[in-house]
């Protein structure tokens, strides 16, 4: 308990509260216009997605290309429940159901596929994402190709904020624990990890399920933000967009994913008026960033987490003093 309310954690809490009210105030006085708000929502939802995929790819080293599939589970669960219960209870219930279904699906999927390595895993997870999408496309309850429209819009800054903070904090806690260390050791060297007594399959599965559940939560938020869910939204392209966030921010860097999502959100906002060149510019930015910063914006480092947010530095950053020779 004492540690939970350590000075650092309290400072962190304080900062979050200040940030929350600052943004709320800016929304109230319309400095953050309804339009900017839509950008904020996008960024928030994709932060959750980026961070959750980072747990799987960046922390545990398992390349997954089917993340949007789990997003769709949450999105559809929320949409379906909210058809009958178009209120906050419905949303939360949908989110819960989505989370449970995601646990189930990701568990069933993870056990066999995570035995695969590298590109084989990538293609298997891509397949999983596609299978989920195709199943949704053909189910009655999901309304097939048309998807579900007219979903009650319940997104708001407080709601978004709560879930984004929850997702990021839980992910950070995940990373900075014995479980996170086990996952990182798997990424570093699976054979050595196993030799250190780490049940690699178990941890890979845990990380995968954890990421899937968070993606599902993000999906539920997506549904209540954008009125419509349809199968195409959750295809490979979306999985790739999430992957881009992870690599852009830096594999293994949760704060990197947060910053990268903001960055991409802003780029997209500026490019909005340039229909034809929008994607070309986006592609060029992507290529150029990768060429000049292949490790992503932050590499595997976290952005001042220990200083500002009060996390103990589990992966110390003390640099080696240059040994004078």
């Amino acid at each position, binding site marked *: 308990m004492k540690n939970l309310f350590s000075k650092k954690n309290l400072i962190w809490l304080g900062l979050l509260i200040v940030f929350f009210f600052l943004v709320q105030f800016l929304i109230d006085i319309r400095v953050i216009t309804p339009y900017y708000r839509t950008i904020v929502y996008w960024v928030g939802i994709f932060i959750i997605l980026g961070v959750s995929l980072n747990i799987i*790819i960046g922390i545990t080293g398992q*390349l997954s290309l089917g993340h949007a599939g789990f997003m769709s589970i949450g999105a559809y669960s929320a949409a379906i429940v909210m058809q009958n219960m178009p209120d906050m209870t419905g949303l939360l219930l949908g989110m819960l159901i989505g989370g449970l279904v995601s646990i189930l699906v990701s568990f069933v999927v993870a056990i*066999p*596929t995570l*035995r*695969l*390595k590298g*590109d*084989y895993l*990538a*293609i*298997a997870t*891509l*397949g*999983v994402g*596609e*299978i989920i999408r*195709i*199943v949704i*496309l*053909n189910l009655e309850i999901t309304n097939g190709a048309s998807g579900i429209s007219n979903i009650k819009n319940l997104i708001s800054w407080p709601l978004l904020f709560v879930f984004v903070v929850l997702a990021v904090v839980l992910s950070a806690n995940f990373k900075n624990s014995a479980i996170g260390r086990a996952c990182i050791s798997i990424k570093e060297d699976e*054979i050595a990890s196993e030799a250190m007594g780490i049940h690699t399959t178990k941890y890979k599965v845990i990380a995968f399920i954890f990421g899937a559940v968070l993606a599902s939560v993000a999906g539920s938020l997506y549904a209540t933000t954008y009125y419509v869910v349809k199968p195409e939204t959750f295809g*490979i392209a979306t999985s*790739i967009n999430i*992957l*881009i966030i992870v*690599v*852009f921010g830096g*594999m293994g860097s949760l704060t990197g994913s947060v910053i990268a999502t903001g960055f991409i959100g802003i780029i997209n906002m500026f490019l909005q008026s340039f229909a*034809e*060149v929008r*994607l*070309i510019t*986006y*592609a*060029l930015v*992507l*290529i150029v960033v*990768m*060429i000049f910063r*292949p*490790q*992503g914006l932050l590499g595997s480092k976290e952005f001042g987490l220990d200083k500002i947010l009060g996390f103990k530095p589990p992966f110390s950053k003390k640099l080696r003093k240059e040994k004078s020779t």
Partner: protein
Amino acid sequence: MQQFLQQTINGLSIGGVYALIALGYTMVYGIIKLINFAHGDIFMFGAYVGMIAVMNFNMPIYLAFIIAMAVTALFGVIIERVAYKPLRKSSRTAALITAIGVSFLIQNGMLMIMGANIYAFPQVIPNRFFTVFGLRLNMLQLVIFATSIALMIILQFVVSKTKLGRAMRSVAVDKDAAALMGVNVDNVITITFAIGSALAAAAGIMVGLYYIKVFPFMGFTPGLKAFVAAVFGGIGIIPGAMIGGFAIGLIETYVAGYGSTLYKDAVVFIILILILLVKPSGLLGKNVKEKV
């Protein structure tokens, strides 16, 4: 039975297309371990070049093939030099993202230059049919089938039996060590990309001739399927790409013909995953455990 055979022919011909694209995919992958996500778009580029050659310059089709393959090879080499080469020493995921960026760039660049419309590839080879034992065979189906097998054999020979092939494989394993043997690593990679891209162009034209439709996004789905095919057969292994291509073509066709088309792609992926569970490095992949 008759219908089953007909479906098999259908499956082999669409599989031939996947195989053709997968060959280039696998080849590039085999040498620089890059999932060249843009390969499908290079295929699309090749189809456009071929189409323009025929449509706007009235070239005979064989010349269009040569021109498209050459131009696309050059295009592939430029992409490699500009976008991929700086990332040789970076992580593979960074390279993958770059490849995705290149894919976006080619698609949308083409969209901007040629517009969103769907072009129809000029039907310069009359689409002749003949009936054998009651089965309808299409001239182009045969051509695609034969070409993919011929190219597979040639490529396999080049890679496994020639000096260039040895150099390619050495570069794949260890660039520095290969350089110490006197291999010009950059050139080998360039040649690899040139060959891979030329193959993609050939596939592009053939698909143009057979399926007619040419548009900026035509590369995405076949590219993805070809990638799946390459993995299916064991990525980096040339005969694997072909077997994977045919396997996927057949599965798709049988499912569409006898089951539900709705689940066609899902069935392909389920079979893929099942096969990977038994053979984690693809049908022809060697299950070597890393020697520690």
